[in-house]
């Protein structure tokens, strides 16, 4: 049995992921630059990846790591599309500050 599994309770990984996840959330809430917000989302996804990988190892089950691959795929696709959108907006507004985008409102 892997030393990690023996010595580190799975709880540690859960808490670590949760903390990283919440840091991501906090970043999303506080940053105004859309690119950084996007990066914070990436951090959230990585927290999830870490959790999945840990579960996968502890459960001796490959599905979790497969899922991580799919998440990476999606993260890449999202990053591509998202950055595309950002560039498009930047072309129009010369800014990536999300606070300035409030034309659509009640």
């Amino acid at each position, binding site marked *: 049995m892997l030393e990690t599994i023996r010595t580190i309770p799975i709880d540690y990984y859960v808490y670590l992921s949760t903390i990283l996840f919440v840091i991501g959330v906090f970043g999303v809430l506080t940053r105004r630059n859309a690119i950084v917000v996007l990066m914070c989302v990436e951090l959230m996804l990585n927290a999830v990846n870490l959790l999945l990988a840990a*579960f996968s190892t502890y*459960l001796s089950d490959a599905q979790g790591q497969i899922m991580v691959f799919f998440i990476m795929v999606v993260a890449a696709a999202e990053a591509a599309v998202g950055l595309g959108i950002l560039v498009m907006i930047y072309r129009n507004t010369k800014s990536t500050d999300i606070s300035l985008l409030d034309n*659509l409102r009640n």
Partner: protein
Amino acid sequence: MTALLILFLTAIAVLFAGLNNRSLLQPLSLIGTLLALAATGYDLFGPGFGWGAEYAAMFRFMPFANAFAGVAILATALIIALSGWGFRNLNSTLGDHYGLILFSLCGALVLFSFTNLTMLFLGIEILSIPLYVLAGSRRDDPSGNEAALKYFLMGSFATGILLFGMALVYGATASFDLATISRVIGNGDQMPGMLKVSILVLIMGLSFKVSAVPFHFWAPDVYQGSPNLITAFMATVVKTAGFAAFYRLFAIAFPGAESFWSIPVALVAALTMTVANITAIFQQDFKRMMAYSSISHAGYLLLAVLAIGTAGADKAMLFYTLTYSLATICAFGAFIVVAEQTGKSTFDAFNSLGKKQPLMAAVLALSMLSLAGIPPLAGFFGKYFLFTAAFAKYPWLIVLAVINSAISIYYYFKIVIAMYFSREEGPETAVELPAGIRWAVLVGLALIAWLTFAPESVYGLI
């Protein structure tokens, strides 16, 4: 499955066709969707292609999936039929548009049939990513840009939340397979806290996709900023897919834990109906109003999720999504004409439409009445079936829903009032009505009428 293949191939074909002959795009897409519709019909009513259970570990095209696929494909077909005009300013990217719509529809089809959380995740992303782009497809339009960014940022944020939930489910049950998860949960009396948290987090993620309060904030802005047809697509296909996914996940994986998740879902449902309806009262913009309308319908549809385990919950949801989609598309069809004539999307653009465009006004009026759930229109039956399904479990929620549907009359009728009762003239430029819009709207109307007189034909389907 066949439909999924047809749609994918059509999308590819459309992408290539877009490079050469743009006049072919609409017919091609329409033919593709109609073929897919036929294939779904063949699966549903006929002997079927027989690979419903071929990849059962990942997705499974059984009547539930086929019926919902029918709804989504039908809605897409109607939207494509309406598009002759709505997309005419898109120039070189027209092919990409049709392609992306069809890709997105593929994602929806996955969501109707998944049996594995991986597929749920991929389905949601396939559905969403093209829409992030489509929302901002009018690249020079600031509103479109803003809509796209808001949708994208919040969408990926929600994806993160959803994934967190999936990860926790995996940890607790050691599987992504819905049936296995359900087996592990059993009757739900010994659920570890982690599983409970995962269910809550999944509710959050899915609530975003179906735009349920308090995860609905994106919807009004995005609906308003997106091109009209994309809004229609979001309001119908995306909503249908989101709910089908929600329903499938909870009906297949978590039925044992119902006593746990019914509280937060009921809370979300109650909040959704109430907040959406009372906010909608104030809207002056048709698309924004429709956004709140779609949020409020999400609240009603959550009743179907709550009614999981009751006979008829899925039937009710199917019927409801169909009538809701048809009415919404008809309304958008009429709205496109109005927007074209007046260049506005506020309610006063509808003034005296009853005189100027009697057909469109009638279509819009009936759609609004149907959405408001006025008997005997199909929308009423939709609500009726939903309410009946959930009534035994949540009488108080039904009372709330009923009060909310009364409030909703107020804003739906604003349109009717503007069209028929306003004695002021709305702005007008004479516009020739393209045949596509007329036919699409008439077909939608005919289907609403059909559902009014024979609800059984859909209600009895699954």
